């Protein structure tokens, strides 16, 4: 990790604080956001370096970093002779991209199950209507399925953008 001069470190700290108080952090845990923002500013980091920058526990950092790797937001860049791993957020656009793709794919995975539910609610309406909750469940499942159409269109758009992004990164 490059050691930033005090002046540069101060600017970095101000940027991260600003991001943490902005729409960029909404709905996200402060630890998750902080680690994400350090990858944005520093690109390559080990877990030990993250601990030094953030003051978070080793356990929490390990948990968050592994989740970021699972979601393809960061990759494993290298492993030292002592086994220490350096992680990298190569491209910020790729990170946003991969996060978006993860959200859409994660949602679409549920489509078959929700279609099964709506079929059951329709086929067995007479019996199921007698139970408390029928209308609310049906309405919510229908709302989600309607959104899936939008997600699929978004995925098509995303695939086109992904190809453009790949060309840009490889050029």
């Amino acid at each position, binding site marked *: 990790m490059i050691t930033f001069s005090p002046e*540069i470190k101060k600017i970095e700290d101000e940027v991260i604080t600003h991001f943490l108080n902005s729409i960029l952090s909404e*709905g996200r845990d402060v630890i998750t*956001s902080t680690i*994400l923002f350090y990858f944005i500013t520093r690109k390559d980091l080990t877990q030990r370096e993250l601990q030094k920058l953030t003051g978070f526990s080793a356990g929490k950092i390990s948990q968050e970093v592994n989740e970021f790797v699972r979601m393809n937001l960061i990759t494993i860049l290298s492993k030292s002779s002592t086994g220490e791993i350096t992680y990298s957020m190569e491209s910020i656009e790729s990170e946003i*991209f991969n996060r978006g793709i993860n*959200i859409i794919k994660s949602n679409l995975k549920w489509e078959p199950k929700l279609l099964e539910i709506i079929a059951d609610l329709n086929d067995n309406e007479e019996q199921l209507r007698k*139970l408390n909750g029928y209308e609310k*469940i049906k309405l919510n499942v229908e709302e989600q399925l309607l959104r899936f159409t*939008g997600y699929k269109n978004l995925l098509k758009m995303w695939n086109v953008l992904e190809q453009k992004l790949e060309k840009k990164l490889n050029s």
Partner: protein
Amino acid sequence: MTVSRDSSKEHIFEGKLKEYEQVLVDFLVESGRAKSADFKLQKILAYLSIHKRLTQKQFRDLTSYSIGTISKKLRFFIDSGVIEKKRIEKSNEYFYQIDNLVYARVGNLSHTEFPRIKEYISMKLAELEIHKGKPGHELLTLRLNEMLQSFDFITRIWSEIRGIFTR
């Protein structure tokens, strides 16, 4: 604004519908996980998405979270403008519901907030130039410039996503 009192067990679903409710909650929570959202926040939002409106006690029955935790999480959503708090008629109790315009408002927020963030980053890049040559200058400048460029992409995607949720 006040409304009529809700039936006390309306929020407890029965039989198969209870199982289907759990499927929906699991789906909505996993969707939140993909966005790195806080688990408890996401679970509370999931139940509200299904039931449309709930009191704190009803949230407690459904989630098993303490009233203190529920109150704190709901406060977050109220402050973010995601949910509204309304009084139940002739009582001191309140119910909570998702604001239907939230996605339109969040979408509009991106039109006001993103330019502000871009402006802030541009200001910081100008500050960085004063310290050219110092350790970290090159890397931080590169990364902030990249972030600036990515905003056009984010804004476009955000508009699409907002469209999905406001249809």
